[in-house]
């Protein structure tokens, strides 16, 4: 969080201003130092770190299970997706794979949270550019998505739903029916959103040709997710390196051409439709059978058994107080979260906590491209660019 502003150029005729850290259009505590020549951006220095909680350090002092609640607080607009990503990384380290039903439930979680995160992006980034109506529509549907998540795991935001080797609770047929109603309604809702913006003249003028990144530039910056795909690169971790059985589902990876704010808008809208498609398939193909791995050293026993059986009580006690041991080794595992590629690099020395946990944040790398995007743009375009990158500072700063 460097407070210096001398990184900008030394021109005497420019004006340096602060946007943020508490500015409604920076989506959280992001500060952007702008050097302006009139209304034109000469240089831009995004300052992050205001939400730095030292999660990588904390992880070294927690058991693997104890770290799951921290993953909620990374991208707090899609906590379920980060829960899934972390559980998969630890399972990769352990060399275990969860049963098919659990994989399907995790796909439901990941796609439901993708829709939820994109609804926030759509509502707020449209609001930033003056299209206030959109916000009310998307937040109404986001409430529906939160109701579903609440029914799934008891919490709306701090879900902590996954466990290493499974999930906290199985899904019920009633919940799947409620999710199905959401899935059936969403395509029509997305049509409604599009009717407000896709051909809206003001929206087109504010977004087309703004914040352009070529495919080459996006790749150099390590940009991932919808921002990269809008630049024409069809990279999606779900397709490139399928996890949780994503290879069984039919879905497309939408890409853009121009790499501007408008294409990012189109890509995310289409991603919501594709997520609906995946959800629909996952509900209909939901396998029966066990949910969690059958390993009492790793996975918590059923509560009913803990209360009645000595052995299960001991297992629960040991997992909760001491945790489980991971083998010596190191892995990198990544998943496609709403913002892009979220990777966990875990170095294990064989202990109950990671020796080092590195979080490869999608939003952090995407935000690094902001200065490039706004070079020579107008101040008003900076707002459009930040909205289209869709950074969540909880994941940027970790």
């Amino acid at each position: 969080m460097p407070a210096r502003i001398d990184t900008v150029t030394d021109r005497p005729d420019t004006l340096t201003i602060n946007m943020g850290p508490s500015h409604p259009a920076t989506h959280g505590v992001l500060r952007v130092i702008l050097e302006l020549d009139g209304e034109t951006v000469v240089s831009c220095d995004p300052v992050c770190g205001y939400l730095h909680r030292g999660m990588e350090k904390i992880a070294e002092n927690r058991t693997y299970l104890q770290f799951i609640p921290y993953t909620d607080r990374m991208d707090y607009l899609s906590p379920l997706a980060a829960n899934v990503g972390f559980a998969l990384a630890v399972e990769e380290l352990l060399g275990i794979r969860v049963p098919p039903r659990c994989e399907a439930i995790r796909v439901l979680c990941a796609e439901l949270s993708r829709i939820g995160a994109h609804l926030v992006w759509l509502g707020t980034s449209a609001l930033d550019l003056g299209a206030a109506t959109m916000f009310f529509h998307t937040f109404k549907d986001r409430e529906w998505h939160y109701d579903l998540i609440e029914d799934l795991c008891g919490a709306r935001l701090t879900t902590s739903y996954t466990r290493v080797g499974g999930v906290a609770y199985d899904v019920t047929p009633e919940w799947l029916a409620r999710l199905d109603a959401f899935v059936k309604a969403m395509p029509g809702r997305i049509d409604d959103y599009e009717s407000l913006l896709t051909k809206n003249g003001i929206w087109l003028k504010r977004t087309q040709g703004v914040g352009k990144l070529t495919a080459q530039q996006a790749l150099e910056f390590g940009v991932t997710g919808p921002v990269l795909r809008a630049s024409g690169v069809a990279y999606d971790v779900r397709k490139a390196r399928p996890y949780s059985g994503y290879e069984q589902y039919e879905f497309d990876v939408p890409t853009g051409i121009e790499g501007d704010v408008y294409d990012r808008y189109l890509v995310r809208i289409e991603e919501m439709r594709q997520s609906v498609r995946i959800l629909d398939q996952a509900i209909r193909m939901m396998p029966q059978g066990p949910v969690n791995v059958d390993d009492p050293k790793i996975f918590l026993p059923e509560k009913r058994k803990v209360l009645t059986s000595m052995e299960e009580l001991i297992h629960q006690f040991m997992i909760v107080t001491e945790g489980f041991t991971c083998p010596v080794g190191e892995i990198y595992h990544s998943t496609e979260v709403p913002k892009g590629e979220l990777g966990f690099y875990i170095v294990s020395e064989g202990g109950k906590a990671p020796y080092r946990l590195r979080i490869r944040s999608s939003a952090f790398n995407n935000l690094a491209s902001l200065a490039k995007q706004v070079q020579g743009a107008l101040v008003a375009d900076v707002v459009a660019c930040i909205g289209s990158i869709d950074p969540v500072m909880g994941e940027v700063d970790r």
Partner: protein
Amino acid sequence: MADGAQAVDLLTQRFGAAILEHGSFRDQHWAVVDPKAWRAVAAWLRDDPATRFNVLLDVTAVHWPDRELPIEIVAHLYSHERNDRLRLKCRVPDRGPVDSLTPLWASADWNEREAFDMFGVVFSGHPDLRRILMSDDYTDYPLRKELPLFRG
């Protein structure tokens, strides 16, 4: 999927003694590079038609206080063309220096700043090496092992 296996083979053929060590875990292959060859190896991996690691996904460090060279720089590369990943490491003295990868990839900029911020390791050739997450007046390097989580 044997991530990086072929690339590690090619590296040992091409650079020989500059590849100090290599190995794998869960079929993810890694190579330790001589710090003197760090940037040259990375550039070759990026440009050679047989490897084409066009994306630098991440750069970070791991602190091993008991080792003679206590800072291990870890870079994750990805090739879109071949859908392959590689973990590249190099071991350097405390505080570095190590060659910056910013001339090769723009993504090295913020990630190396973060590694500097967290471990105090200096990346030579980095155009703008200053703290990124901690405040400017902070004096420690939080992810170093001698720094406790709580200071009582």
